[in-house]
Structure formats: structure tokens, C-alpha cells
């Protein structure tokens, strides 16, 4: 999962492909069904609880969702339990 998040964080071309067809993009990675669902929906709270680096998660979220303006939504989701 961190590999996916890193790729999205580091490469805008991959972000575009994720937005275009997330399922197809994620199919290239060795993910479980659950992991794929979590990444498609960017269920950051559950992803964080699985032990994924929250620093990486935060940076990848912003890369996918347009930078700092997306931070409030990220924080809202992170504080949902």
C-alpha cells in the first residue's frame, strides 16, 4: 500500500491515471481486495489504522486531491472513528 501511495505522491502522471480509472490503475499492484477498496475510496482512517505511514498517507492524499485545500477533508476523515 505504501508503494501505491508513494507512486501517487511522486508522479503526477500516475495521479492522472488513478483519477481516470482507479480500478485499472490499482490492478497493476499486488494488493488484496480489501486494500484495493481502501485505496480506491481513500479511506485514510482505516489505512492509517493498518499501520501505513501517516506522513506518506498525508502527502499522497494532497497529491491526489489538489494540495493544501484538501487538508480539512483529510483531517475530518482522520478524526472519524
Amino acid at each position, binding site marked *: 500500500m*505504501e*508503494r501505491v501511495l*508513494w507512486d501517487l*505522491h*511522486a508522479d503526477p502522471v500516475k495521479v492522472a491515471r488513478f483519477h481516470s480509472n482507479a480500478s485499472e490503475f490499482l490492478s497493476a499492484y499486488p494488493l488484496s481486495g480489501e486494500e484495493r477498496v481502501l485505496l480506491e475510496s481513500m479511506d485514510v482512517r482505516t489505512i*492509517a489504522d493498518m*499501520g501505513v*505511514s*501517516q*506522513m*506518506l*498517507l*498525508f*502527502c499522497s492524499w494532497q497529491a491526489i486531491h489538489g*494540495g493544501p485545500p484538501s487538508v480539512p477533508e483529510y*483531517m475530518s476523515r*482522520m*478524526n472519524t472513528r
Partner: protein
Amino acid sequence: MAEIVAGFMLPHDPLIPSMPDAPPLQKRKTCMDAYATIVRRIKELEVDTVIVIGDDHYTMHSPACIPRCLIGIGDVEGPWEEWLGIPRAKIENNEALARHIMQTGFDMGVDWAVAKSLVIDHSTAVPIHYAVRPADGVRAIPVYLSAGFEPLISSRRAHEIGKIIREAVTSWSGTERVAIYGTGGLSHWPGMARMGHVNVEWDQKIIAHVADGNVEALIALTDDEILRDGGNGGLEIKNWICAMGALGPVHGELIAYEAVPEWVCGCGYLEMKQAA
């Protein structure tokens, strides 16, 4: 023989350059004045080389390879982050001394990851921008520890690496006057649910230990304790611990401290001086 003549602890918060107007003016001024104090002091002490100890934030390195400890011995430029508010530029490295630190480490049991060409992230770029570059002609050697994310370097190991850096500098045949910068911290929770919180009490505890030169008290803090009380960002005190290893017996004198929730960080600055 090269000599370590100065040491400083300072933050590397990326929001300082990228969101300069976020906090109240007085807090910003306190922090920027603290960086300026460090510049003034390294000029007074005729420092010509700074070893800047930082940690990656999944910016430079992917999950495919996470160096435990890394030293830049060749070309250095940065920062990586286009949003940082600091233009990417070349950073003058003291390549000969960096290579000596590398080799001394190899000889003494530090399996450095080595970068012959390195693009640094904010953790060293911010301190270099504010506290090295304004001192014309001073070169910077970037050192990175795995203090930003799992798997974390142990605090004890960070200290040991610092001691070996000291051994390297003092055995160097050159005449450099070297400063050590321990960067990062203090309490912050980047990307975590508590991001924006500053634990002033914990920050003051850390500052007190550093002021007393009590590195063992810092090493005794478990990673879980640091994570609980100082956040994933608080783990960056391992960079400070490494710096204290390099500095030898020292005590810290507080330059400034500000709790800056707008920068999601407690910002602490200390000058390290030889213990009496």
C-alpha cells in the same frame, strides 16, 4: 586538525517557508530571529562547514529503499519539494570532509548509505536556507537518519553515529571549523489525527534535557513514549541525539521556543556549548 566549534538544535518545519504568514507576527519574528542568531553565531565562531542532521519524510526515498543512515558526499541540491517556497539550488558540500566521515564510519562500523548525488528534502534544506546560506561561503554536509518513519533508527544508534562523526571530524587533516546542526522537532503530528497540536509540556521537557546535556535521558525515551507525547514528528529528536553524540559533553542554552500550531509544530532553538 578540524575542530567542532559550534552546535545548534533547530526546527526544519516546512511550513515556515511555505506558509510564512500563517502564525501571529510575533511568533514568526521570534523564530526567524532565532535562525538569524544562529547565523550570527556561526559567523562569530568562523564556522566554515556545517554538518546538518535531518530525516527523510518519504520525499527522497520510496518504500523500495529506506536508508538507516545516509551521507551526501558529492553533489547536493534542493529542496525536492516544489511547494516549499525555497527555490531549488545547488548547495556547496564539503566533499572531502564528507568522504572522510563516510570512510571513518565504514572503518568504525557505520554502514552508511552514500549519495554521490543528492537532492535533499526540507529537513536539511530549511536549516540550510535559514541558518547556513546567509553565512557566505559556509558549506553544508547533509546527513540523514531514519527518524521520520518506520523502521526507525534507535536513539542509542543515532547517538553512536554522532560519536563516530565526531571522531571523523577530529581526525580530519584539514583545518575546518565545523558546526553540528541537529534538526527537527519538537512536538508535531504530521499527517496524524492530532496534527496541529503542540505539546508544550513535552517540548519543555526535551529542552530541559538538552539544556542539561542529559542525552541519556533523551535516549531513555522509548519510541512509543515519544510518539504518544511528541507525535511522529517528535521522533526527530533522534537527530538532536545524534548531534549531541557529535558534540561531546555539552549543555544547551535556549535561544527561543515558540508553540506554533499554525505551523503545526513546537519550534525550539538551542545553542550547544562545551560543558564546564
